[in-house]
């Protein structure tokens, strides 16, 4: 009866073994082998070799065919020290794999050589439960959810559009939400601004929104900016860096500031606006498509700008438009799907119709065109003084 040591030696002798340096060369080559981590999940979660797939040795025979359907492709296996991977390589040879290689010295030796490892990260049990419906979607999964938790999204306004955006982004587990709003909650807001409630009347919207978000999801850090966006403060607000801006402003001066800043800082903007029964959404992604000024080079003169307060809006409309904006923001943060770049989506609640307009980059655009004429922030005159939120 062989001892464990003899069995291991026999396995090691019967399979191809490589050291960490050689393994790295193999992995860097064009025809790199499939890298399989045969350790247990808890070991995997504490760090792994980039690009590896996890097939614990206990499930090796049943799962390897899914992970490595092509038996002619070499498979490089590793464990902690090279013992389990030697046995695993032997098993793969028995299963008919052409070339199963074991990393002698395992992950320990890999690390000792200072070779790259993936951060020891995973969601942990609580987050795995909280985000389970995201984890079930292949396009999101654990990696996507971790990406959302690392994302930083800046909301312009915590009003009609900002409310649903703040709630859904927070629920989705976007790790950092910046919120810019200078206003306080008043009774006329509650018909549509669902991040606020009667309990927050008279309170700054940033505080009220933060309380709502924290009650919803403690994973989210809210960074409040209780101020109105101006040429004076915009650089400071953008300084920490944001992945996506969700523009739910209620006035032209802010929208033009946001646009110009996004072009200069290369930050995609998910744009939404609403009036009565109708709303529009698009994504302005610097470099990829048009910007707001390609569409509207200048704001309308004051006397022509529709007054938001007089216009009114169906309460649910910002819910629809703000939610579409949120879907776009999440797609951008995750890097999935086709964002609404170069496409303007119009929604008419009365007719129940969506329509899509093509938007093109304007080569003569004063900000993102070939010879820009606007290179500094412009504070346009306010003509819809905060009443329309």
């Amino acid at each position, binding site marked *: 009866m062989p001892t464990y040591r003899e069995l291991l030696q026999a396995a090691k002798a019967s399979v191809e073994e490589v050291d960490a340096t050689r393994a790295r060369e193999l992995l860097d080559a064009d025809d790199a082998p499939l890298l399989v981590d045969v350790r247990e999940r808890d070991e995997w979660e504490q760090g792994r070799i980039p690009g590896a797939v996890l097939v614990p040795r206990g499930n090796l025979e049943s799962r390897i065919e899914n992970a490595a359907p092509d038996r002619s492709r070499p498979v490089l296996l590793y464990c902690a020290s090279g013992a389990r991977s030697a046995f695993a390589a032997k098993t793969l040879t028995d299963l008919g794999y052409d070339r199963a290689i074991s990393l002698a010295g395992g992950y320990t030796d890999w690390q000792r050589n200072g070779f790259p490892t993936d951060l020891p990260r995973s969601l942990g049990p609580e987050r795995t439960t909280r985000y389970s419906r995201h984890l079930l979607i292949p396009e999101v999964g654990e990696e996507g959810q971790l990406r959302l938790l690392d994302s930083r999204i800046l909301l312009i306004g915590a009003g009609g559009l900002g409310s649903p955006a703040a709630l859904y982004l927070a629920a989705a587990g976007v790790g950092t939400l910046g919120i810019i709003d200078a206003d306080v909650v008043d009774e006329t807001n509650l018909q549509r601004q669902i991040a606020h409630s009667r309990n927050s009347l008279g309170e700054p919207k940033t505080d009220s929104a933060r309380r709502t978000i924290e009650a919803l999801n403690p994973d989210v850090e809210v960074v409040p900016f209780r101020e109105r966006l101006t040429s004076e403060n915009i650089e400071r607000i953008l300084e920490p860096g944001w992945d996506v801006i969700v523009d739910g402003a209620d006035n*032209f001066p802010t929208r033009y500031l946001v646009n110009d800043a996004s072009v200069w800082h290369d930050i995609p903007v998910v744009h939404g606006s609403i*009036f009565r029964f109708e709303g529009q959404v698009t994504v302005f992604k610097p470099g990829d498509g048009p910007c707001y000024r390609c*569409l*509207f080079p200048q704001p*309308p003169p004051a006397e022509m700008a529709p007054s938001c307060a007089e216009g009114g809006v169906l309460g649910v409309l910002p819910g629809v438009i703000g939610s579409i904006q949120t879907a776009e923001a999440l797609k951008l943060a995750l890097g999935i799907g086709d964002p609404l770049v170069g496409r303007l989506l119009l929604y008419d609640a*009365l007719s129940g119709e969506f*329509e899509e*307009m093509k938007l093109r980059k304007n080569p003569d655009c004063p900000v993102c065109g070939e010879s820009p004429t606007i290179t500094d922030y412009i504070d346009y005159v306010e003509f819809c003084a905060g009443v329309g939120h």
Partner: protein
Amino acid sequence: MRIPPTLRGETEGAREVEARGGTVRELLDDLTARFPALRRQLLEDEELAPFVNVYVEGEDVRTREGLETAVDDGSTVILLPAMAGG
């Protein structure tokens, strides 16, 4: 022609109005002859105002021939001024 909600005050609330003409300019002339207050909302020095977009069959006329863009019989033309509400 589709009238945006922000301009319906000038068209007695109409969401859609028929207009005649073979080009965008002719359509706008016909439209503004009936609703004169619309003219200064859409045109500046007889050109399309910089805060208004016009789409013919989903395409921005600025990326075509501007006001001279041809419009086929029965086409839908959408007027889209900038709106800021949030």
